[in-house]
């Protein structure tokens, strides 16, 4: 019936008395919202903080360039891996970045399907973050290979003169498909979501150049009901597609390990555990970005305490899933009765790399559980710190999984150790620079908060008309 008339943007025409804390501070009008957000872009002159951060970011980016050159000209031997530990920082960081990427799509897509209206003001830069993170992650699968100049096209199925095709049984090929699909779809999702706001910027832009640029980007968007109709269908379907996609991506990444036969890798709980971990890390990163951004651009009105707290809750929930994963690993190792599994676990917790496991417990189990308390969830400073811990924790998790499984597997005779080299670190920091740069450019030139979607959740957006 009429009440079942629900916007595909998940904004039912609901009786205000059921609405919890407003998602936009009271007193805002369509116009004021536009003002506030569009202002962040070109219109206002750039804050000094922005320039400073950009400088740092570019410096780090330079590091990445150097590291890549070194890699191409000297060899992967500059990095830490060896036999038995064939992977180290490369895959650790790859998984870490991919994981961070997940929050974006989750917020935009899954929360959309779940009709979480509070997503509307944070989804845009969460998506941007996803793209940046995926771009960083992509550096690794390519450059960690021994011969990147071949890897970058031999991994793709194309008709070559050798008559050879990739081995579709290999999880690495699954990765290629999953990650590239994820990247592309996220890009589409992000862009489509932005078209109307680009229209707005086009209409507000002062100088001719930006007018034309935004004009082209918005493709002639004119807010017509017919447009909105198709647009919403497309957007909703994209969300519907991205949801299984985002789940599949980290599952596939986890297959890199789960499919193998190495104790500590060969386990069935990886897919859910990895996905949860990804969202966990992703939200941590969103908070790490949102909190300063909100403060820097005075966005408390659109990114309200309610948003912040909800994100904290999601972090707590996914954190608990991850904690359960840790427990399960221990339990299964014992319960399987398998000699190698048991040894691996014992050695992981008490062996030479015990510190990594201990630190992991601190970062991902102890600290995040403070979020049970509302005080902790609503204190942005503390939340920021917790998020930092989680970021580090999730990095450690990958370190623990990769290194402490590989360095002592079946044959005691060929056990070894792993230690990252300065090139490993230079590369990692470099990708950090790439990430920062992209995010800075984004907030500067594109609408970091979706105006049209925020307007939708202003009271009376649909009019009082009842049918």
């Amino acid at each position, binding site marked *: 019936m009429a009440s079942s008339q629900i916007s595909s943007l998940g904004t039912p025409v609901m009786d205000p008395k059921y609405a919890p804390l407003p998602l936009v501070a009271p007193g805002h009008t369509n116009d004021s919202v536009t003002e506030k957000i569009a202002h962040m872009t070109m219109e206002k002159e750039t804050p000094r903080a922005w320039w400073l951060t950009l400088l740092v970011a570019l410096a780090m980016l330079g590091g990445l360039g150097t590291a890549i050159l070194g890699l191409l000209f000297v060899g992967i031997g500059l990095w830490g891996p060896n036999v038995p530990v064939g992977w180290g920082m490369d895959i650790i960081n790859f998984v870490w970045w991919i994981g961070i990427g997940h929050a974006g799509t989750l917020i935009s897509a899954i929360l959309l399907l779940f009709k979480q209206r509070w997503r509307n003001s944070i989804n845009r830069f969460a998506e941007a973050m996803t793209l940046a993170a995926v771009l960083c992650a992509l550096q690794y699968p390519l450059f960690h290979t021994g011969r990147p100049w071949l890897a970058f096209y031999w991994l793709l199925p194309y008709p070559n003169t050798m008559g050879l095709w990739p081995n579709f049984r290999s999880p690495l090929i699954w990765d290629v498909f999953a990650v590239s699909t994820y990247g592309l779809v996220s890009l589409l999702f992000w862009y489509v979501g932005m078209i109307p706001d680009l229209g707005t910027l086009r209409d507000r832009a002062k100088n001719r150049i930006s007018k034309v640029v935004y004009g082209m980007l918005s493709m002639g968007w*004119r807010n017509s009901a017919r447009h909105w109709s198709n647009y919403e269908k497309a957007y909703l379907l994209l969300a519907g597609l991205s949801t299984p996609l985002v789940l599949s991506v980290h599952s596939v990444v986890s297959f890199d390990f789960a499919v193998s036969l190495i104790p500590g890798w060969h386990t069935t709980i990886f897919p859910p555990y990895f996905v949860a971990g990804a969202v966990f890390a992703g939200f941590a990163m969103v908070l790490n970005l949102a909190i300063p951004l909100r403060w820097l651009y005075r966005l408390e009105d659109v990114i309200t305490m309610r948003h912040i707290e909800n994100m904290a809750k999601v972090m707590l929930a996914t954190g608990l899933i991850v904690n359960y994963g840790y427990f399960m690993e221990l339990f299964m190792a014992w319960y399987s009765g398998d000699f190698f599994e048991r040894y691996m676990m014992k050695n992981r917790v008490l062996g030479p790399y015990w510190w990594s496991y201990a630190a992991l417990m601190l970062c991902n189990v102890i600290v995040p559980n403070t979020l049970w308390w509302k005080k902790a969830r609503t204190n942005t400073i503390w939340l920021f710190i917790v998020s930092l811990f989680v970021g580090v924790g999730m990095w450690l998790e990958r370190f623990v999984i990769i290194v402490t499984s590989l360095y002592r597997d079946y044959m005691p005779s060929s056990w070894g150790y792993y230690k990252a080299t300065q090139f490993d670190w230079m590369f990692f920091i470099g990708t950090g620079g790439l990430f920062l740069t992209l995010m800075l450019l984004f907030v500067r030139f594109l609408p970091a908060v979706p105006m049209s979607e925020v307007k939708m959740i202003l009271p009376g957006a649909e009019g009082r008309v009842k049918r």
Partner: protein
Amino acid sequence: MSEPGYTPSRLLHDLKELAAWAKAPVPTGVYGLMAEFSNADDVVTAARQVKAAGYRKVDGYSPYPMESLIHELEQHHSWVPTIVLGGGLTGFLAGYGLEYWSQVIEYPMNIGGRPFHSWVSFIPPAFETTILFASFGAVLGMLALNGFPRPYHPVFNIEEFTKGASNDKFYLVIEAADPKFDAAGTSELLKSLGPTFVREIPA
């Protein structure tokens, strides 16, 4: 849903309209009439009345998606889902087809003692291609259906429109191509709906 789903008769009807539109002489002087409204309620009411008055070539404009407006203008139906479905199917067939052909027909190899047709391992890539193609279907479909890119449009001739449509104003446009359109009468009707202004859109 308050109205029945998309029936064959409806399809027929739409096609007829499309034909009529194509046949109709392109009005040289004027594209249509535009009325600006300052709040959501008015535009929705206006839309309903214009429709009731039998106008077909009506379009509404709002700074954000408005269910009610779309509803009033009967623009609910969209071909996007169909296109997405097509994309998805193509994607799956392309993905799995490539895998099967290359691993089983073109160059079967004994890899780790696994069968040539390791269908279990073939699922992940096929799944990804499915999603990829479907997503492209959604986006390209939407752009195509909206006739994008379309940087020029008569409505942009109205100064206020270019300021308000994407910010906080609401508009109703009746095209000159509408069979019932007549400059005077239509403008009267619009004026009666409490707009901030009604203006003729030069083509």
